[in-house]
Structures are given as structure tokens and as C-alpha cells.
């Protein structure tokens, strides 16, 4: 992959020539692109120079506006990504090709749907050959989904540590005993882990093993059934029911929506990053206007609900994601550069930080200045809600701890944020002592 003049390109080398030609001539690329399962690309070989030797083609893939990683997805996003991968494999096999990778990182969400971004993940299918991506599918998709469904939804965070998917022996230890009685999970996870252990130091054992096309179809059908059978219902978490327990009156809630809409009209962002978005109620004020919007929240249940709404209402500009803002996704992989950190990917024109500041300043002891500095790294525009100390939500936070936050005041908030931002608007919310601000970075 490389960029020239701000545009993303990919060099196809001569070593991949035959597979690339088959991908294009078989009609697979066009069928997958037509179904929205792969990012389409244009052949621009004649217009763009090869950055390295050995080049056969230069292609220009469609760019996905918002990049996210599996450890930021909710249960249904990972499940949809898994099923999309199997679907792509089935379509590929009909065209005489097969996926050589089943990495969750090859899937991104575009217009609310999972899409394969690695155009060169295909190779010619040879009758009798096993599916080389099987292990990766189990580690990247099936094991984390099973852990989320049967043990704890938060275990998806293991994907942050294990960049090539959750080791199956570890998944096996964490899964409850009952999963050993489920034939598909027993086979693809528990027996699979045992087989990995058994043959880990016998590389020659797999040589010559063949898997008929019929058996491969059966394997894929079993994987799809195992994946679909996993369920997780978002309930009983802190934020999943947030809007049922807020202290807004109906009037102040509507006014807040109105004000945010006005601020959006004023700033006209083309990309918004909503921090502490819950299910994305306010994010939708931006995304419904066609603004690409990332809605981050720490609670997998809230993100799950947000994603289900995205699917149910075919919302194309909103991407709900799981993120602990006090410990955002770092750069991962080789030299910390294989997976970009949150701050690189979340850059936007505007940050929304609604009813968030008290959680950062009081629950997490973060000084206003540090919060302002961080938000300033993400975008020039900021819509932020100040929640005063006497607000019932802040009082809840203080109920179980000593109030050492003598600096937590509106004056101090304005002074600290004022170092980084110009305050463009300051609007108190009706029936409340909360204040909504529109700010613009001094750097811009």
C-alpha cells in the first residue's frame, strides 16, 4: 500500500499475477463488489508509477472513511464480520478461488456493513486442498465470539493482546464446560486446540492430507452454523439503559438536541468523533445529515444497541465502537505500526463530548487542561457539555468518595479549556445547570 498525492494505491507484484488475473477474469471481484462485500478498485497501472520493483499492476481501492479494529467492535459487529468472511469464501469458491486469510483486520465497516478491504486475499482453489485460513477464522472470529457469548463480553479485549487472534488453548480454558457439549464448538475450538498441541512439533504430519470439495463445503457450513448459533443480549450494564436514568426533563433534552443541531450547522463538519456516545442518540444528529460519525463508548451493551439501530434503520454514516477513553487503543503490532492508535484514526473536524467531562475529571481524576489538550488533538471544533458539581449525576460519582475536586467548577473549566480553544457559544440548558459550549481550537 502507498499514498501518492493523498490517494491510496496498492502495488500488485508479478508474484501474485496469476491469482490477480483470475480474481478479475473469473468475475469474483465484480460479484463481490456488486454485493458490497469487497472494496472495489480501479486499475491505474498506466497512470501511476510503481513505487517498488517487481510490480505488475497498480490499483486504486475505494477508501473506507472510518478505520476500526476488532477489539473496538461489539458482539454483533464481530459476528457480522465473521459471517461476511464465510460468505466471501463461499462466493470465491464458486469462482474457483479461495480466501488465503481470514483475518478480522481485513474487514472494515462501510455504510454500516462489513466489507473486505484486502483485495489480494484470494488465491486459486485447488481441489483437495484444506482451507489455509481455517485456523485464523477460529482464532479471529469463532473463539472471541464464543468467549463473548458464553463467558464475558469484555473478553474481546484479548484481541488487543493477541494480534493474530485468541489462542485456542487459552479460549478453551476460559470457556465454560458446557461448550464442550456443543458439537460445533467442541470440534472447532476444543478439539482444534488439542490438535494444535498434539501436532505443534510435528510439521510433517499435515503433508498430503486432503479435504474434498464436499467436505470443505460441510466445514464452511458448520462454521457458519457455529457462528450464527452464538448469541449475546445486551442487558444489565451501566450504560445500556443510560437514557432511562438521566436527569434531563423532556424540555431540556429537546433543547439540547436543538442546540447541538445549531452548533453542527455552524461548524459544518464533514467528520465527527463522538466520545462517550452511549447508543449514539446525539451522534445521529450529525450522521443523519450525511456526516461520517464515529460513536465511541466504553460500554459494549450501549455500542451493541447502537449498532443494532444502525442495521435496523440502514444508517450509512454512523459507526458505533467500543473504547475506554482513559486507555484508548494504542499502536499495535510490529514496531507499534501495524495497527494505528486511536488518536490517528479518530481525527475529525469536530469532537462531541456530551455529559462526559465529569466522568473524566471526577471519576478518573483527569485535569481539565489534559482533557482539553487531548480533545484538541482530535479535532478543531468541540461541542462539550459542562456538568456542574451539584448535578445529581456528579453527586452520584461523589457519593462513594471524598470530594477532593475543589477545582471542579465552571470558571476553572472555561479557564483551562480557554487555553486551547476559543469559546464561540455558551448556552445553558433549560431546567438544568448544565451548559453546552461550542469551541474552536486556537491552532486552527
Amino acid at each position, binding site marked *: 500500500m502507498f499514498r501518492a498525492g493523498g490517494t491510496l494505491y496498492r502495488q500488485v507484484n508479478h508474484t501474485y499475477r496469476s491469482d490477480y488475473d483470475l480474481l478479475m477474469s473469473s468475475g469474483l471481484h465484480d460479484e463481490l463488489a456488486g454485493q458490497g462485500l469487497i472494496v472495489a478498485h480501479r486499475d491505474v497501472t498506466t497512470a501511476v508509477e510503481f513505487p517498488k520493483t517487481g510490480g505488475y499492476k497498480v490499483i486504486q481501492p475505494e477508501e473506507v472513511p472510518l478505520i476500526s479494529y476488532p477489539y473496538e467492535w461489539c458482539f454483533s459487529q464481530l459476528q457480522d464480520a465473521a459471517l461476511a468472511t464465510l460468505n466471501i469464501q463461499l462466493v470465491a469458491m464458486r469462482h474457483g478461488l479461495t480466501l488465503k486469510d481470514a483475518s478480522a483486520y481485513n474487514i472494515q465497516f462501510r455504510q454500516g456493513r462489513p466489507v473486505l478491504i484486502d483485495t489480494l486475499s484470494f488465491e486459486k482453489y485447488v481441489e483437495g486442498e484444506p482451507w489455509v485460513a481455517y485456523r485464523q477464522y477460529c482464532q479471529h472470529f469463532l473463539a472471541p465470539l464464543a468467549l463473548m457469548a458464553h463467558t464475558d463480553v469484555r473478553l474481546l479485549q484479548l484481541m488487543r493482546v493477541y494480534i493474530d487472534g485468541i489462542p485456542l488453548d487459552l479460549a478453551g480454558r476460559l470457556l465454560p464446560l458446557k461448550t464442550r457439549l456443543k458439537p460445533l464448538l467442541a470440534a472447532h475450538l476444543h478439539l482444534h486446540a488439542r490438535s*494444535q498441541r498434539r501436532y505443534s512439533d510435528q510439521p510433517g504430519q499435515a503433508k498430503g492430507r486432503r479435504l474434498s470439495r464436499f467436505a470443505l463445503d460441510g466445514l464452511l457450513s458448520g462454521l457458519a452454523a457455529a457462528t450464527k448459533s452464538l448469541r449475546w443480549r445486551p442487558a444489565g450494564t451501566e450504560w445500556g439503559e443510560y437514557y432511562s436514568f438521566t436527569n434531563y426533563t423532556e424540555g431540556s433534552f429537546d433543547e439540547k438536541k436543538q442546540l447541538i443541531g445549531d452548533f453542527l450547522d455552524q461548524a459544518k463538519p464533514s467528520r465527527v468523533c463522538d466520545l462517550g456516545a452511549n447508543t449514539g442518540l446525539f451522534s445521529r444528529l450529525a450522521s443523519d445529515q450525511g456526516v461520517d460519525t464515529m460513536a465511541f463508548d466504553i460500554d459494549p451493551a450501549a455500542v451493541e444497541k447502537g449498532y443494532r439501530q444502525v442495521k435496523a434503520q440502514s444508517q450509512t454514516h454512523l459507526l458505533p465502537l467500543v473504547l475506554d477513553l482513559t486507555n484508548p487503543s494504542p499502536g499495535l503490532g510490529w514496531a507499534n505500526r501495524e495497527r494505528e492508535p486511536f488518536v490517528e484514526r479518530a481525527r475529525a473536524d469536530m469532537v462531541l463530548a456530551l455529559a462526559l467531562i465529569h466522568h473524566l475529571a471526577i471519576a478518573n481524576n483527569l485535569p481539565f487542561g489534559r482533557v482539553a489538550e487531548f480533545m484538541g488533538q482530535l479535532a478543531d471544533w468541540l461541542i462539550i457539555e459542562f456538568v456542574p458539581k451539584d448535578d445529581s449525576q456528579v453527586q452520584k460519582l461523589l457519593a462513594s468518595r471524598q470530594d477532593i475536586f475543589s477545582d471542579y467548577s465552571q470558571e476553572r473549566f472555561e479557564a483551562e479549556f480557554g487555553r486551547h480553544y476559543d469559546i464561540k457559544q455558551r448556552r445553558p440548558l433549560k431546567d438544568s445547570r448544565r451548559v453546552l459550549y461550542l469551541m474552536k481550537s486556537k491552532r486552527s
Partner: protein
Amino acid sequence: MHLFVAYLDPGSGSLIIQVVVGSAAGVIFLFRNSFRQGIQLVKGLLAKSSANSAK
């Protein structure tokens, strides 16, 4: 703890279990498809005979 899995795993175990599970799944798949085809055939024959008797 099998450190080999972390450092040296050549993927043999995954390929072998795949062949085993795939073969078993293939047989189930075959039976299921044959069963479905059989049901369809019977349904078709029944529909044909009822159409004939109606004439």
C-alpha cells in the same frame, strides 16, 4: 503450557483437525442434502398425483 504452539506451530494441528471435522461435516451435509432432496421429490410426486386425480 505448550510453548510450541506460540512459537513454532506450523499449522499442522489446524489442518489435520480441519480434515477430520470437514469430513464428518461433509457426511452430515451429504445426508442432509440427500434428505432434503428426498423430501422435495416426495412432495413433487404427491403434488403430481393430486393434480392427476383432480383431472
